[in-house]
């Protein structure tokens, strides 16, 4: 049962082959059994989950259910949950219980879904390995010496180990797609503004976007149907019509034009990864797609631009964590500067502090034009590159990550190499485009993801292509053997 997809579970629940309570108990047991090994949950809330499961069962019995009523899942611990701790992976918020639900949380609750717990993550979503969490690193279920990727590493690991059938993640520079790639699951980063950011603790407001982390594209479509849409509480959310994301899943991809950016396949790409992506693209060609080399000439500027914009916004977004109203406060502050310095000094981890300092620097008088303004200009160039490419092609394909899951501690003390591993994902965030990572193969028993990038609001098309790909491949069905 625990290897079932959302689609299968939905059917089983509707046909009353299993109750939500049984299902919830099953996954809760798995969470409790395996969390010690994987550390993918910060909070498991058994009582609330079971209570909600029973409510869901009642709704199913009364016929008041949606497709996802009664289905257990997990939230990344960046989404505020009313009455349940939301830590954002930080000591700063270890004691923080929000008095409100994020819009995404509210929507999934309204759909009758049952939250099992909150997943581990890089502190404030800053990291690509899940090693910056105050709650310790998450392990990759394919090999526990390896990282699961980040920042949504807890969600990726939990779904890969089938501790929950699906989870939410957030993606600021690749934080859904890269861990999805490293853990062998499907992760969709929607168009910026497609999913409300209200109640999602901000890292970099102009880049952050929540999305589903699932076993299949079909499952991602089901979750998108619940969470996508305009939210009047988020001014940056898009007033753009929302698709039924399952509607086009079974469309043929005959005639699809795929762009292959030469910058993604040039030197620097591991030849084993290149081979897997090329094979994946061949599968798509067999389904009737054609490929074309394209250029995204400003790709090499995306990392520097990202590491100016994201820290700049984070330095300001994280100013509210000052020890005054909520969160961590140092012991016995002797005066106001001491309260600020020690609360923030003790409450934030190293990577967060590094980014706050970079961000503060690039926004400072005399540096703003040279860094922040320049980075914004580069952002426009990157957006234009994609728009030019989409004149000729329908989607863009390439690798999600530069390699497979690296070893714990391997890059921890080399932030630049860690930052560079985001090369294929960050430009999508800078441009605000949707992109999906789907499992496409293995190297030495570690998964590799293929990334598909679409034009604005083309999530349906991405899910369609991914779903068609998953009809002819079974990479997404692989489960690490200890978790089968």
């Amino acid at each position, binding site marked *: 049962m625990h290897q079932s997809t959302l689609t299968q579970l939905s059917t089983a629940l509707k046909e009353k082959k299993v109750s939500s309570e049984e299902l919830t108990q099953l996954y809760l047991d798995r969470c409790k059994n395996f969390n010690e090994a994987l550390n993918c949950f910060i909070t498991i809330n058994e009582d609330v989950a079971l209570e909600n499961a029973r409510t869901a069962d009642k709704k199913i019995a009364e016929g008041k259910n949606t497709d996802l009523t009664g289905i257990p899942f997990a939230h990344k611990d960046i989404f505020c949950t009313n009455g349940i701790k939301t830590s954002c992976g930080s000591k700063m918020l270890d004691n923080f219980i929000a008095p409100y639900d994020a819009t995404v949380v509210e929507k999934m609750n309204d759909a009758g879904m049952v939250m099992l717990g909150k997943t581990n993550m890089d502190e404030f979503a800053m990291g690509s390995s899940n090693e910056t969490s105050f709650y310790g690193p998450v392990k990759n279920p394919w090999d526990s010496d390896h990282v699961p990727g980040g920042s949504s590493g807890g969600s990726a690991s939990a779904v890969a180990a089938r501790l929950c059938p699906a989870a939410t993640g957030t993606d600021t520079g690749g934080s859904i797609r890269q861990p999805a790639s490293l853990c062998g699951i499907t992760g969709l980063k929607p168009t910026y503004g497609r999913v409300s950011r209200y109640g999602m603790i901000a890292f970099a407001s102009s880049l952050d976007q929540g999305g589903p982390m699932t076993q299949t594209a079909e499952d991602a479509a089901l979750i998108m149907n619940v969470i996508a849409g305009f939210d009047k509480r988020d001014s940056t959310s898009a007033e753009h019509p929302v698709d039924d994301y399952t509607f086009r899943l079974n469309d043929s991809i005959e005639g699809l034009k795929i762009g292959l950016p030469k910058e993604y396949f040039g030197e620097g790409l591991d030849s084993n990864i290149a081979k897997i992506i090329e094979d994946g693209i061949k599968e798509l060609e067999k389904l009737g797609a054609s490929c074309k080399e394209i250029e995204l000439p400003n790709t090499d500027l995306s990392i520097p631009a990202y590491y100016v914009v994201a820290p700049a916004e984070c330095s300001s977004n994280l*100013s509210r964590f000052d020890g005054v109203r909520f969160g961590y406060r140092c012991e016995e502050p002797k005066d106001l500067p001491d309260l600020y310095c020690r609360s923030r000094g003790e409450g934030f981890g190293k990577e967060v502090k590094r980014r706050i300092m970079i961000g503060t620097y690039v926004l400072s008088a005399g540096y703003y034009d040279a860094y922040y303004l320049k980075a914004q200009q580069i952002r426009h160039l990157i957006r234009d590159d994609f728009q030019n490419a989409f004149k000729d092609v329908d989607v863009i394909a390439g690798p999600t990550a530069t390699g497979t899951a690296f070893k714990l501690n391997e890059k921890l003390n080399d932030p630049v190499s860690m930052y560079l591993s985001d090369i294929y994902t960050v430009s999508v965030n800078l441009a605000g485009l949707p992109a999906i990572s789907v499992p496409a193969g293995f190297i030495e028993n570690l998964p590799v993801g293929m990334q598909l990038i679409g034009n604005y609001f083309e999530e349906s098309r991405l899910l369609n292509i991914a779903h068609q790909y998953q009809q002819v491949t079974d990479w997404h069905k692989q489960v690490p053997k200890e978790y089968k």
Partner: protein
Amino acid sequence: MEWETVIGLEIHTQLATESKIFSGAATAYGAEPNVQACAVDLGLPGVLPVINEQAIQMAIKFGLAIEAEIPERSIFARKNYFYPDLPKGYQISQFELPIVSKGHIDIQLEDGSSKTIGVTRAHLEEDAGKSMHEGFGKLTGIDLNRAGTPLLEIVSEPDMRNAKEAVAYMKKIHSIVRYLEISDGNMQEGSFRCDANVSVRPKGQDEFGTRTELKNINSFRFVEQAINYEIERQIDVLEEGSEIVQETRLYDPNKNETRSMRSKEEANDYRYFPDPDLLPVQIEQSLIDEIKSHLPELPDAKKQRFIESFKLSDDDATLLTSQKEIADFFEACVDAAGGETKLSANWITGELTANLNKENMDITDSPVTAEMLGSMIKRIQDNTISGKIAKQVFEAMWNGEGDADSIIENKGLKQVTDTSAIEKLVDDVIANSPDQVKQYQESPPEKQGKLIGYFVGQVMKQSQGKANPKQVNELLKQKLNS
């Protein structure tokens, strides 16, 4: 050396929106601490600001009233600094592309001439909360009720040359925002306050001297005092051969002096950048047109109308249009007085204003309403009471004893115009004052005018003020001269 002063003002006016600028919390003043602060105002993690359309419209209204440009696109920016009453660690304000750009207003100088003062810009921003340093022992209390209250910051050009001009400018802006009903302008509650940038330079010099910024002044009187103190201080410093330090200074009204708060070097680097949580505001021409079509009559236009259609003096018109409420009171009073403008103006600028000032009251709280005053003026007009008795009637109305007619009735204040009754009083007084009559009759005519006052006084006294003074005068003259 002769010095010239250069002054620019930054006025913060609180907009009278129902809810806060970026949240749905109420803006009412005076609630228990922290009951009017929601998750957004508290800066809790994950919450997001949403712009209050009403605040945008009010800002546009102001822009149109000062004939300013309203740019098509306006941007909110974050001003980053740490302070306990600033919940997010940044204030959402505007930096580049404010909602209102260049405009101007006219102020009236003491010699009666007028001067145009440029307004550089006006931008929207959120207010911070309040730190309370008393009542918490060694700790500081934070009240976030005010956090997120919408402010319009109105920045002038450095066009003012003395404290009086600065006050006139501030009063004019105050009057405009009140006329537009975009702010209650309540200075005690901090809804209208200003920072003054002051510098001096040798007369004739083109470039400005080094300026200081006087912070958070919340009364017209303090603005004048603070600026005058600061001008003196700066001239003293310069005449001693020292230099002015560019700094922020605080005015202490108790000691009437300004004190250094922080120097330029200590100033914050606010790291302004566009707020990524808020999209740029697009202002459609249709919205501007809509707001324009509903603009109320502004002080200058009203004053002109008062002069032209009510034949008021410039001074009276200025006074009566200084506040919308006074102008409204005046017009209602004229209505009730059957169109009598001069007496209405006199009573409002005289007796009523004196009483209001004495009690420290606003005209809207006056116990004598415009209708009551108008009706009383009508009774002066139709000779039911004299102007002197009217003062008595007014006092009684002020003390809540009813309207003019019932007071006149109850107190028997109706003017005596019956000639025979007055004649009897006149005869009595003449009979009882032989010495004075003799003196009067022996005096040359030019002195008699003065001496008749005694007899008038006596007759009025006997009549308890009710005799028609004009008739008394005439009868006395007739009798004494015969």
